[in-house]
């Protein structure tokens, strides 16, 4: 399944969004499962509160019911609306008929897309281990490469400027205690960078 996103500048982004929301029924099932799972979790704190008869689980349970109701109403609405009219024997709406076919992506483009999503999470995973100050230049470089910056001059200068500004603003001017790493050598290196940036303060 694909979805078209008409952007304000006239561009049309067509992105394949996988089978998760491919039919209204699957979408309904997703919400029902979510509501059911959350409802099951409320058993863990279903305890009475003095002078409040709905307890700690009352409000979340009502919201679970509301989610289930909303999802069912949406399914009902979509199914009744999607019935083919006499002028549409194939069952396709005008919008669907006009929908632009999604582009076929090369393996490189697919990897590039996956990289854009994965890189921040990898950065977050390694940051507590090797520290913000060591991980950040590599993160900046990775993002630039994923965004197809190939010039060595641009890669080095943008990394230096962004990293430098971050150090200047958040370490020298307004000290934000960012992670310095758990691995000893990285811990020392991070602290050395902080001490260097804050020289004279």
């Amino acid at each position, binding site marked *: 399944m694909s979805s078209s996103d*008409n952007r*304000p500048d006239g561009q049309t982004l067509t992105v394949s969004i996988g089978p998760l929301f491919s039919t209204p029924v699957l979408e309904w099932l997703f919400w029902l499962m979510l509501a059911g799972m959350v409802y099951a979790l409320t058993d863990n*704190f279903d305890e009475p509160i003095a002078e409040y008869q709905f307890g700690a689980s009352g409000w979340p349970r009502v919201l679970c019911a509301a989610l289930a109701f909303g999802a069912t109403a949406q399914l009902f609405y979509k199914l009744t609306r999607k019935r083919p009219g006499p002028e549409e024997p194939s069952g396709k709406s005008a919008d669907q008929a006009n929908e632009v076919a999604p582009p076929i992506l090369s393996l490189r483009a697919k990897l590039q897309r996956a990289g854009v999503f994965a890189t921040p999470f990898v950065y977050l995973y390694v940051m507590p281990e090797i520290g913000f100050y060591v991980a950040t230049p590599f993160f*900046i470089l990775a*993002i630039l490469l994923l965004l197809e910056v190939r010039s060595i001059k641009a890669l080095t200068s943008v990394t230096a400027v962004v990293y430098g500004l971050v150090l200047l603003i958040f370490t020298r001017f307004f000290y934000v205690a960012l992670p310095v790493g758990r691995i000893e050598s990285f811990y020392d290196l991070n602290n050395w960078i902080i001490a260097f940036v804050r020289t004279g303060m």
Partner: protein
Amino acid sequence: MIEFVNGTLALFGDPTAVMIFGFGLIGGMLFGAIPGVNMLTLGAVLLPFTINMAPNHAVMLFSVIYCAGVFGGAITAILFNIPGAPENAPTCFDGYPMTVQGKSGKAIGAAVSCSAIGGVASAVVMMAATPLIAGWAVRAFGPQEIFALIFFGLAVSASVGAETLWKGWLSVFAGLLIATIGTDPVGGVPRFNGGSVMGFEFSSYYLSAGIHFIPMILGFFAVSEVFVQAMSIAEGKRKRPKASLEFPSLVEFWSVRFTMLRSMVLGFFAGILPGIGATLAAFLGYSQAVRWSKTPERFGKGELAGVVASETANNSATGAAMIPLLALGLPGGALTAMIMGIFQIHGMEPGPLIFINSSDLVWVTFAAMFWANLCIVFLGWLQTKTVVHILNVPFRWLAPGILLLATIGAFALRNLTIDVWVMFLAGAIGFFLRRTGYSAAGIVLGLILGKLGESAFAKSMQLMDYDVFGFFSRPIAAFLLIAALLTVASSIWNEVRGRELQKALID
């Protein structure tokens, strides 16, 4: 009037006061505009230094920071889809699409002018009627009215940004559900941070504090925008937005006069209520602009009225928020609580007597807020002429900076890595939400108002002895609830009849 003139003379006749005024103005704007820090950061840093300041200087400084900070967040919201503060989130809906269309100058111009107009109007009403309005608002608004107002706010905002009404409500419910993570507001019982489901045991100490809305906002707006742009770069479809310096014309301003007036009134009343403030004001202003517009389908795609509605409403709330603080000693938010702290540091108690005992201080503060809002026009104009040139920098060079700012902003909030995880997860979810027609704005609104709504509901139930119809025995609560129910009913009616609903923030 005489008091205002005296306050103005006291402000501008004292070089120290002028310096403090200028510092607060520029500092508030800068801190409001940088996502990693905000006006509260500046307030927290400056609070200890106020001990050595004259009380009128200290209170005036924080009031000016408040006015300027609320406006400052609009700049990044418009240029990069990163709201500097939650109250600027609705500004993104139309401000950023305007930037994409090469109308950034108009969007910032509208934000500047409307922030100033909203703020000045609010300051004037604050000067004219503080004791009267504060007394009425606090007596008339109990937990029942607050719950009814939140319900009304959710009812009118549910479809903002969603493809259909159902998707809007599902988004709001999801946000309300996320808000229940942490602890129960009545008994402090831990919720969703440990236990077992289907034999799977889990426990998280970090979730005890709940999911904060700031990482969610940064994720839904800033991170997901980077993902979207990265995808379009991967597909070779991205076009760089043009930097524009064009201000909105008088004709354009005239065409949004009713939007401005409506947002002013809504913002003012939302601002008076403790804990509600500028965020709900901005969402209410925006959703009402969509509701009353003859062309609601244009909202979310770069409609000037969207920026006007949000920015007028959130700045109208600033003056209003000072009313319960000064007249009754009730701070409505974090920054007004800091101002309360300044009063206490200097041995004063805000309340009705402050108008008699410290009249000079009150009028210098009023005058400073009035002039700060006027100065926003000039400083904002300068910003428009300078900041929009950032758009000439290729997005691929800006993207790492945006992600890093968002990362630091999310982390600095509570020094928790989990907030950064939440932000990136929200970014990934936001990317898919944009393509499936669900509303990131709805989730954020549900998350922001969820805890407050639950707390107000629980208190109402206890006060009314669990009689739900008790809401209808209080005129304001009844009016708001009926208005909310009518809004829901008419939205469902429109949806069922197949009318095209307002579709904002899909992209």
